[in-house]
């Protein structure tokens, strides 16, 4: 059968207006259903005719999934809140600037106007073999096309690979983990749960076909950010080839509390180096109580990349990750404008 990578196949479109309705539909159609948030990731799969759901459940009509609300000294962000609304929200700007920076660095203005924070954290990997429909491990096959001696794998993983070497491409995910956020999941079966953002993401060792713990029949409804890290000393940096509409080669997000120039506490996350965002707990522990200086930063950088195993074309990610971790600790020197 010939392959054509164009024109979305027909599907039945379901447009619930409440979370309850959405869950009922999810329960009814199970794995035949596809959840549509902003749609930017979904349409790519559908137009390539690789994914062919019978039912598409469009969440855009569910107002209760949208908006930023104060909650227990922190905030709760509805999963269907657009990235633009996250970026513009005064609480996010004033207390969680790292999330603003991360969300603003994602994709392009139009995508941020439509793409949601729930979609941004739940999006699939952008490995160009997998996304082209090659029958790799992640697609249910038994090979990784990106990990052969000849593969072109500049964008792929240096850590945590297990058969699959794809990376998580999200910009908001590391920021949310740095802020110690929680993901609120609701289920058609009524088995609702709340998981730490850190645990929301999974590597191929856990499930090679999924990026998150989200099971069929489950819906990410909200993201909760505690007040603990509000107004901390934040650092977010995304290194990419193009300054708009590009995924990170590596990004870093950190929240730090200092006393004078001593680091009291820190959360530090790097993404696009593994199939899930990596929180660097050992580095966090190491820097606690240390002065915020070059020496600490250098040692932390080296510690961060322990165990890294580059592929043929992505060895640069090792020094890049090291240097971004250093910068998260000691900052970056800028040119004075001439």
């Amino acid at each position, binding site marked *: 059968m*010939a392959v054509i990578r164009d024109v979305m196949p027909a599907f039945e479109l379901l447009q619930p207006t409440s979370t309850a309705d959405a869950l009922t539909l999810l329960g009814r159609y199970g794995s035949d259903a596809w959840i549509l948030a902003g749609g930017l990731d979904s349409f790519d799969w559908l137009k390539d005719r690789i994914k062919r759901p019978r039912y598409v459940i469009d969440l855009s009509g569910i107002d209760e999934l949208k908006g930023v609300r104060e909650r227990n000294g922190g905030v709760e962000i509805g999963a269907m809140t657009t990235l633009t609304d996250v970026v513009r929200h005064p609480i996010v700007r004033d207390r969680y600037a790292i999330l603003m920076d991360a969300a603003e660095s994602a994709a392009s203005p139009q995508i941020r106007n439509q793409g949601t924070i729930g979609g941004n954290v739940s999006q699939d990997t952008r490995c*160009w073999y997998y996304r082209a429909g090659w029958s790799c491990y992640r697609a249910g096959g038994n090979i990784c096309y990106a990990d052969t001696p*000849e593969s072109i794998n500049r964008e792929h993983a240096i850590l945590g690979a297990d058969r699959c070497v794809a990376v998580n491409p999200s910009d908001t995910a590391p920021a949310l983990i740095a802020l110690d956020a929680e993901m609120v999941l609701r289920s058609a079966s009524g088995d609702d749960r709340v998981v730490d953002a850190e645990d929301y993401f999974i590597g191929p060792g856990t499930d090679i076909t999924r990026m998150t713990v989200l099971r069929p029949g489950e819906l990410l409804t909200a993201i909760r950010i505690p007040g603990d890290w509000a107004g901390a000393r934040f650092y977010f940096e995304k290194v990419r080839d193009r*300054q708009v509409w590009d995924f990170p*080669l590596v990004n870093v997000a950190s929240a730090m509390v200092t006393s004078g120039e001593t680091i009291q506490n820190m959360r530090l996350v790097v993404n696009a180096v593994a199939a899930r965002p990596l929180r660097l707990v050992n580095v966090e522990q190491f820097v606690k109580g240390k002065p915020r200086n070059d020496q600490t930063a250098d040692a932390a950088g080296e510690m961060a990349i322990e165990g890294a195993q580059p592929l043929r074309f992505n*060895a640069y990610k090792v*020094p890049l990750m090291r240097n971004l971790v250093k910068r998260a600790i000691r900052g970056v020197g800028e040119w004075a404008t001439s």
Partner: protein
Amino acid sequence: MADTKYIGQNYTPPDLVAKVTGRARYAEDFRAEGMLFAKLLTSPMPHCRVRNIDASAALAMPGVKGILTADDLPDLGPNVERALTNEPFYAGEPILAVAAVDELTAAEAVEKINVDLEPLPFVVDPLDALRPGGPDARTTGNVWGAPMPGGVGPNAASPVKTIKWTGEQFADADEGRLPMGEPTEQWAYGDLDAGFGNAALVLDETMVVQSTGHHPMETRSAMAYWQNGKLYIHASTQSVAQTLPNVARWCGIMPQQVVLISEYTGGGFGSKGGGAVSTCIPAMLSKKLNGVPVMMRITREDENYIGRARTNMSGRTRIGFAKDGRITALDLFIVQDNGSYGPMGDHRSAGLAASIIYQPQAMRWRAISVLTNTPPRSQQRSPGPMQANGQRAKLTSAFIVEALDKGKQAFRWDERKAYSGQRRGAKVRGVGVAVGPHGSGSIGFDSLMTLRPDGKLYVQSGVGNLGTHSVMDLARVAAEVLAMPWEKVEVVWGDTGKGVPWSCLSVGSQTTHAMTRANFAGANDLKRKLQEIAAKDLGGSPDDYELSNERVHRKGAGGGLTYTQAAKRAIELGGKYDGHEVPEDINVMTKGAAAKHAGLGVMGVAKDNYPRNGTTYSFVIGFAEVEVDVETGKVTLIDYLGVGDVGTVINPRSLLAQIKGGSCLGIAHALQQKWVFDPKYGLMLSRRFHYSKPLTILDIPATMNADAVGLPDPETPVGARGVGEPPVGAGYGAVLNAIADAVGVDVFRRAPVTSDLVLMSLENKKRMHEPLRAHV
């Protein structure tokens, strides 16, 4: 031309309001009653043979109207690319097309077709094809030989040959030195050995320049139908007059049977020079289906494959410098990835450009153009010279020194140079300059215009309308010669049914030079006729008459005729005056177009027969400042200036936009844009813009600068030359030189210079990147 009223002045092109309101119609914007939609079935393999096509299930689907295969297309001769094939030479090459009532049905029909394919050997890297025992891209060989006798032009017909190099010649390849086995072509001048012998410094370097897709915003969509034995085709092309015979050839009919409509073209950059061969698919489907309109919307996915790309070039340069910096000897060897069709000639242009850019006392050029199972190439804005930035011919003029001086001052070069290379924090700055040369003007084309009793001048324009505004600019010359108010000039373009003269290809910076000459000739022909008509009616000799205030009148304030009166008189006089008699030497297409306009007024019709001594070249000098982040490897362009030596400026705003836009194409090559294939499976990986990375508005400074010296070319009557290509090499070379200035010359030997490449080389204090592979 002295004391001009229009040349050198900004104006509002007459198509701008249609564009800005969305009324301008590009090929895919046309609709027709009962229109069908076509979709392509493309090859999943980089090289294979079609053994059998079973479309029975597809044809049985409701709404499916028919299919078209290679067997339905005319044979275009050996080695010539056709729109459909039974032996795909690259993955993504169209095998057949399906027409159905809508796109969804057509797509589902494609999925129901079983194509039995026999896999054949393939190769996507040119060096792999040259290795001993390496695979050939075609069953008939792996390289294009030198052009056959009588072959002309950049794509002159050549034979396919088989050439393999020895293992010994590949010995240094792993260390990044380009192997140099048997070339297919070469030339040399001067004493190379003496040049190297006298040199104070000799360098031997290898540089790899990637292919990139042209990716005009408008894909090569087309819609076609037949009426009364004539083909009406709405297509996207850079050149209207020159595409007409191509469409006829692709469809196996006579040019007189084709009406081509292409009023607006959404960019081409060399990929739609003489149209796109795929254009004939809806035409031939329609023919098979009794003329019913067929729309073929080419998707971006299709465009990745059939949309053309720049050739890849790996060059090895041995270069000798005297103490004063003068180049005593240059020995250049180029391995070109020609792609699956062609033959391409970029490697030849690159050799010529290198001789112009570097002015070596002695030079040798050797090259080989290798066939690979990658999508077909075509010339891309500055084909060859950009890659060389890296002829011995008399040039018509060159004011490079003036341009350099102007740019150096405007760019504050000395000031910036003072701090380049110094590290501050993680950042280090560098400045670079480069000259982009390009052949910029063909000659010998036709002009056609009529001055009618309504008092208006109708200028027929046979070039394409792809946004350079040259399609309109060339009428400014006629307005100038005929002292015609611009408001009374109507440019007629984009529809061969309206009659257009034989015009140049709108490629390679040709149009401004070629068509200002032609229209200067045509307008002067019309002027002479006006003078003759006046002399006939009012006495005296034609030379006693001049033109002003829409009148032809005796010099000074004497009597004369209004243009309206003269136009009426021309119609009464007939013969040559109203176009019933035309010059012998004009092209048959111009004769046909003139016949459509005969009797409408005074006709200006002429071939450009002006002499020219030398080869016409335009130049742009690029000045760039970059900032390199040594901790991330990221290169940021801080400032850019392009200064052109392109002859007389016709339309300043368009010219400066060409310099900036063209420079941006080169900047993208230097910094980010790529084209990637998996070598093992021979399939394209960079199928999306976020993988291939064309330049965005945030990858350049918010303000860019451009200027031109504006000195006329003495070898062309209007003094103007083309500008499309030269800025590309200028932008590319200036940025690469600036990066080298910032972080040292040894960091990279391939482009684009992405952060991975810079960071790894700095980290390891030696070049670490993939040395020779073409598409990574």
